[in-house]
């Protein structure tokens, strides 16, 4: 099928936003594949885009020519640490390798998709995943935290699930540190503002204070979704001639960072206007998008839906194509823009929020558009699936990208970075608790208990959680202050799930291997004591710079610990997220492997809340 055949769906051509033709000057400034072939020696700003010399060389080798500006934009962002997991991949493999077939018994979709999907019985499935939004939340606390919630929720939607709850493990510097005062209120308000507006109950999380997070707060967000087994959808672009449809918010210059360098190369005249430093979330747009996607799945008018997060369209095009039959042809100039001065490189890299991409058969397109219209969601046919094995991007008819999609999405660089146990671990581990002063009598013991209860890390969190809606959707059986959040999934049978997230970064700092296992064990216990049978794990691995062998060692140890722990407990890791470079100057945060455990309850009516409710009840201490 040629690009012209898109016009057979001509009644929607208006929605295609046919853009004004390029001026001669713009055409000349455009970096096309043709031009790249003819001008192999052009100096390209790969270093400014965060690429290493050998990575740039690898791209040239893949393409057998220099990349165009747009290709460079795509490779640089997709091969970044954040998108490619290039430093962590070699270690994360253990999660797969140490998963036995028995552990996979309840796994409908495993690690590697947008989110894992777990069978909880009675035809029901649950998907859940935790992700970080640390750096954006440091820059702009409210919007950073808000868009963190928005991003993880879109992952859940793309699996075909209805999002049903969120959780928010948060970590801040010392309570009385000025930076904590700067970031904390905004982060909490942002988590609440976005989640409340989406109608997702907040059923748990963490609030932890430690000086190591001064200047680098951790904002992790977990989302949970439920679906019937038959509703599982995977995001891939299959079926020659199927359409690729972008829908949701318009594309602006959000989060394009380095791409502006490329753009200013391209646009001599006037240059691009200022680009926003941060992304602003629109939770209302996302709420509408959720309902719209659920209607699309229900009407069975989509093959798959991919969320747009980090790396925006670059990621969506290349991943959809790479997971599918391998070819795609898109007309980038059709993308509806919020800022008409955006250059193609910038559009490819934009991280504008509240956007999704669907693969739709031509026959289903009218049905698809009827639903997006009903929800007043803008939808644009960007192109189609092809059998060429190439991802081809056109800009006003000129070819600006022509690449093998796998090379962008999956075959990026992989580093086995050096790691070594640092000497200072000896000092750290020598500081055993036995050296701490002990209370000498009942009075001192009493005082100690009162002091401890008043410390920020042990005091009530209600000043945070009271800003979160825990009632919406009417299925929350447990939230704050219980050990695990408990949700009803099936209203008739009472089938439900329990979820807890935990990590004690001080333990992880003392011993990353055991610390990660303790985080797992705590979340596992919290699910267990709520009455849930643990089934699956998600994790968010927050660490310092992988280029520091000491940090890399912490990372390797934590992953090994978590993988071993999961094997012993017999529950698989189904997904998660790695956040590296969490440090201020050369000082890394404590290793912080946040672990979320999901368990099933046959009937949530039989859950166990924490605390002693009935006078006269007997107390037992279990375990060692």
């Amino acid at each position: 099928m040629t690009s012209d055949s898109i016009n057979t769906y001509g009644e929607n051509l208006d929605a295609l936003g046919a853009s004004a033709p390029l001026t001669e000057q713009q055409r000349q400034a455009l970096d096309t594949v043709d031009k790249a072939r003819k001008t192999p020696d052009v100096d390209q700003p790969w270093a400014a885009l965060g690429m290493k010399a050998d990575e740039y060389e690898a791209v040239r080798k893949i393409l057998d020519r220099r990349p165009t500006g747009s290709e460079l934009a795509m490779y640089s962002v997709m091969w970044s640490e954040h998108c490619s997991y290039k430093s962590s991949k070699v270690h994360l493999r253990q999660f797969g390798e140490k998963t036995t077939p028995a552990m996979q018994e309840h796994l409908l979709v495993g690690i590697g998709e947008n989110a894992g999907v777990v069978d909880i019985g009675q035809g029901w499935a649950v998907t859940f995943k935790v992700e970080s939004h640390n750096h954006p939340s440091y820059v702009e606390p409210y919007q950073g935290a808000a868009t963190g919630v928005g991003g993880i929720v879109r992952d859940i939607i793309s699996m075909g699930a209805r999002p049903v709850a969120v959780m928010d493990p948060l970590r801040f510097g010392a309570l009385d540190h000025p930076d904590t005062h700067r970031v904390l209120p905004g982060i909490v308000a942002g988590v609440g503002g976005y989640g409340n507006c989406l109608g997702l109950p907040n059923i748990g999380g963490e609030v932890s204070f430690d000086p190591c997070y001064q200047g680098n707060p951790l904002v992790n967000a977990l989302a949970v979704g439920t679906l019937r087994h038959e509703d599982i959808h995977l995001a891939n672009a299959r079926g020659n001639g199927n359409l690729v449809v972008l829908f949701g918010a318009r594309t602006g210059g959000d989060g394009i960072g380095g791409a502006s360098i490329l753009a200013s190369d391209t646009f001599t005249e006037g240059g691009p206007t200022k680009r926003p430093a941060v992304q602003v979330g629109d939770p209302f747009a996302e709420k509408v998008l959720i309902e719209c996607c659920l209607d699309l799945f229900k009407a069975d008018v989509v093959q798959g839906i991919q969320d747009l997060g980090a790396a925006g369209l670059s990621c969506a095009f290349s991943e959809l194509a790479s997971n599918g039959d391998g070819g795609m042809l898109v007309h980038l100039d059709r993308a509806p823009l919020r800022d008409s001065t955006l250059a193609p490189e910038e559009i490819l890299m934009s991280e504008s929020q509240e956007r999704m991409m669907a693969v739709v058969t031509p026959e289903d397109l009218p049905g698809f558009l009827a639903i997006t219209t009903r929800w007043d969601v803008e939808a644009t046919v960007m192109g189609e699936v092809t059998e060429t094995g190439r991802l081809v991007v056109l800009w006003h008819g000129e070819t600006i990208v022509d690449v093998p999609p796998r090379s962008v999405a999956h075959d990026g660089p992989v580093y086995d970075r050096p790691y070594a146990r640092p000497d200072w671990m000896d000092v750290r581990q020598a500081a055993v608790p036995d050296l701490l002063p002990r209370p000498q009598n009942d009075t001192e013991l009493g005082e100690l208990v009162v002091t401890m209860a008043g410390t920020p890390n042990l005091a009530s969190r209600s000043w945070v959680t009271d800003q979160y809606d825990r009632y919406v959707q009417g299925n929350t059986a447990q939230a704050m202050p219980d050990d695990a959040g408990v949700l009803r999934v099936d209203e008739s049978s009472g089938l439900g799930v329990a979820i807890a997230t935990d990590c004690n970064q001080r333990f992880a700092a003392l011993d990353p291997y055991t610390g990660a296992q303790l985080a797992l064990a705590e979340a596992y216990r919290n699910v267990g004591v709520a009455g849930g049978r643990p089934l699956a794990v998600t994790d968010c691995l927050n660490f310092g710079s992988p280029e520091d062998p000491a940090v890399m060692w912490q990372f390797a140890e934590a992953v090994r610990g978590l993988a071993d722990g999961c094997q012993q407990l017999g529950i698989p890791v189904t997904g998660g997220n790695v956040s590296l470079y969490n440090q201020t100057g050369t000082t890394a945060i404590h290793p912080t492997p946040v672990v979320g455990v999901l368990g099933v309850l046959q009937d949530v009516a039989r859950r166990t809340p924490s605390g002693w409710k009935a006078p006269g009840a007997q107390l037992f201490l279990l375990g060692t």
Partner: protein
Amino acid sequence: MRIGVVTFPGSLDDRDAVRAVRIAGGTPVSLWHDDADIKGVDAVVLPGGFSYGDYLRCGAIARFSPVMNEIIRLAGPPDQVSSGLPVLGICNGFQVLTESHLLPGALVRNEKQQFICRDQKLRIERTSTAWTNGYAEGQEIVIPLKNGEGGFIADESTLDRLEGEGRVVARYLDVNPNGSRRDIAGISNASGTVVGLMPHPEHATEAGYGPEANNGTDGLAFFTSALQGVLSA
């Protein structure tokens, strides 16, 4: 007994309201913001949420939807004594009702400038409404409250008139969570058919999923009242 529940883009508690109607023994009917047809329902619930994102003012944009035009017509002016279509506006629904001028006053940002979610104690002050006739006058109940802009305000003469005409339906007890004037949690029109309430009775209709107090079912009577009222009408 058919009770309509309106869904605006951005409504959140619509499914909960539908469930509450069902638990109360009624037949819930989903109504769509863009459709003026209210399908001959006997009463309407405007649910909580953030209609159209509530970006301009809470409820301001929803008020102009086709379904609201029809509901405003059927509910009748706020001071008329003969009864029109019973309407319960919860939280965002209450905001839509004040923006529609079916109820006086307005709801503004919480005094402490923060969203607040808590189990809230209320006293039912008026039982001669379509939605509270199942309560005893002065009955104290606990239902969830969750809002960012729940402070009820009106000028002094309006407040005096509401008090004088006995149109304060519920008042906050123990804590005034949002700075509402005279601790007002809910009010009604003159005939008692239209009620606006900030806290959420629909989240307290099922044991185990509402506040811990009283089994968490203190809100159910709002919905059973409507059925009673409609039956006896």
